[in-house]
């Protein structure tokens, strides 16, 4: 088992807590009607984005999904700008032209949340191909859901990554449901990871509520990719805490499904119990991070609400780099 330094433990907790606070707050604000459009929340899945992205550098790329806020935060995108983007403000990560489903920051190696299920697979092959040419040991990670695991693009991308021997990692975040459809029904095999052998790569299954398990599996896959060992498929099993999108009545869920998960499985709770009982971190140190995260999101929401919307002239800009 990889030994994490205290600083790394605190960083991991801060990232997960920031994502949770961000998502809980977007959930609450959405209910008041102040947030436009479609919003898909990552709460419950924090250990995945955090466990993987902690192994990455700014010149490593990730491709994300419509449920992308967690990936963005874990890859270093500014949560204040993200919140402004979700509110459709000119100060947002994408100047208000992308919204929740298209937050990106190429300077941080974040190739974008993606409104198309499975859209990121081929793109991350490209990023991994570019990394191969740049010869600096860069890697690309494609996060995708159980729904996307059945899309041709993901299957094509996994095949291509193996054929071209790319430094790519495919992270199947199996959160139980594609919209309202259970992955136990839509995925024809027992595990998404079982498909890895069909593409000539290792397949790994990991408990997505356990940050340490994710971090360990991610470290192995990233190391393999960096060293030229080729792609890996990692299936992260967990469940999301909220609906497919905000406003989803979630009548497809089992009784008390989420409540039970929150009490018995929650990645933040589990992390806290483990590191405080081992004595590696004091509870008070985590409490400080909780307060920091709350303050950060308070500030982000207040700023997002106050910030200006894009101007009429912005409608026509940035379609092309140049267009006579």
């Amino acid at each position, binding site marked *: 088992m990889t030994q994490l330094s205290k600083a790394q433990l605190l960083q991991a907790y801060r990232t997960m807590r920031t994502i949770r606070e961000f998502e809980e707050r977007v959930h609450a604000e959405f209910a008041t009607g102040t947030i436009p459009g479609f919003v898909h929340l990552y709460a419950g899945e924090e250990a995945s984005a955090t466990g993987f992205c902690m192994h990455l550098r700014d010149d490593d*790329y990730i*491709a994300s999904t419509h449920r992308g806020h967690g990936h963005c935060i874990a890859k270093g995108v500014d949560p204040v700008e993200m919140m402004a983007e979700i509110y459709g403000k000119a100060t*947002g*990560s*994408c*100047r*208000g*032209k*992308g919204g929740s489903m*298209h937050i*990106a*920051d*190429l*300077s941080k190696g974040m*190739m*974008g949340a*993606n*409104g*198309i299920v499975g*859209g990121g*697979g*081929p*793109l*991350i*092959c*490209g*990023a991994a*191909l*570019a*990394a191969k*040419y*740049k010869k600096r040991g860069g890697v*690309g990670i494609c996060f995708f859901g159980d729904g996307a695991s059945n899309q*041709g*693009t993901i299957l*094509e*991308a996994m*095949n*291509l990554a193996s*054929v*071209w021997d790319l430094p790519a990692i495919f992270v199947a975040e199996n959160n139980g449901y594609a919209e309202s459809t259970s992955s136990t029904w839509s995925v024809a095999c027992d595990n998404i990871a079982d498909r890895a052998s069909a593409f000539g790569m290792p397949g790994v299954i990991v408990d997505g509520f356990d940050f340490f398990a994710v971090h360990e599996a991610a470290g192995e896959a990233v190391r393999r990719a960096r060293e030229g060992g080729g792609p890996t498929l990692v299936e992260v099993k967990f469940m999301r805490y909220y609906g497919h999108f905000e406003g989803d009545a979630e009548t497809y869920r089992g009784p008390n499904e989420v409540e039970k998960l929150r009490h018995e499985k929650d990645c933040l709770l589990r992390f806290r119990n483990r590191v405080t009982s081992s004595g590696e971190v004091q509870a008070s140190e985590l409490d400080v991070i909780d307060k920091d995260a709350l303050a950060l999101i308070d500030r982000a929401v207040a700023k997002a609400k106050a910030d200006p919307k894009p101007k009429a002239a912005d409608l026509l*800009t*940035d*379609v*092309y*780099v*140049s*267009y*006579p």
Partner: protein
Amino acid sequence: MAREISYQQAINEALRQEMERDPSVLVMGEDNAGGEGSPGERDAWGGVLGVTKGLYPKFPDRVLDTPISESGFIGAAIGAAAAGMRPVAELMFVDFMGVCFDQIFNQAAKFKYMFGGKAQTPVVIRTMVGAGLRAAGQHSQMLVNVFTHIPGLKVVCPATPYDAKGLLIQSIRDNDPVIFCEHKLLYGLKGDVPEESYAIPFGEANVVREGKDVTIVTFGRMVHLSNEATAELAKAGIQCEVIDLRTTSPLDEDTVLESVAKTGRVVVVDESNPRCSIASDISSLIAMKAFGDLKAPIEMVTAPHTPVPFADSLEDLYIPGPAKIRGAVERVARYH
């Protein structure tokens, strides 16, 4: 120094010169070298019609064969472009856009805008268009209009070897995603092409023939069929001005409108199906911006609203030819 080479050779030369100039240029596609993993020779094909033949021996690390997996590798080209490379991916026949269009129109075309200007995707997708090879319904379409409709894409349709080289070089150097449409019946066409590297700017139509009576607006292979028609029309006393658009996005509106101001009579020739086509687009442009100049209704010469047929007797009818163009020009010229 110029010498005569074919449209196909001009494309190959543009790729070679840009790969020599810029190490971030990659070429990828099905059989772009050919023979990958097989017991025989590498560079066995150079693409299905040999357009990329000879590049692999010169740049073995930068000419990539791909599985038949268009979503996978077209998307990979787009991702690599967003990550700093300049890939030139070959979509063998434009008809195959159906299996990879998401990566082109939802990803490549929208990155810059959706990401607030903070991304660029300098990818070129080379693709074969057009009817006339008896290749039937799924290997013969134009579809240029479909790409032209999408904000964020640039669409290039060279008609000559000179333009094929200069426009492809511009496409590779351009920082936006470019769909580069190569007409399969033009590959063997020869013409003067300078040996040195040169780029032709986008959005500059070419007036290939000047005339005072009727304006013919066209692009791609139809430039040549229009030229054929004008020779006979000239004998009958009708002087046509033929405009080759070269790029349908961006579109050189000024050259079209200036010509219409001079002639007042217009025929738009487009190998595509007629509805929501480049022909209907140009016609509406002229109707909106040059109504006062018009002396006759605009005529469109296009394929019919059918798939491309197989039998030669039908395909020859499907493709707009010099006779149809001549008929339209005569009607427009005679109109009072």
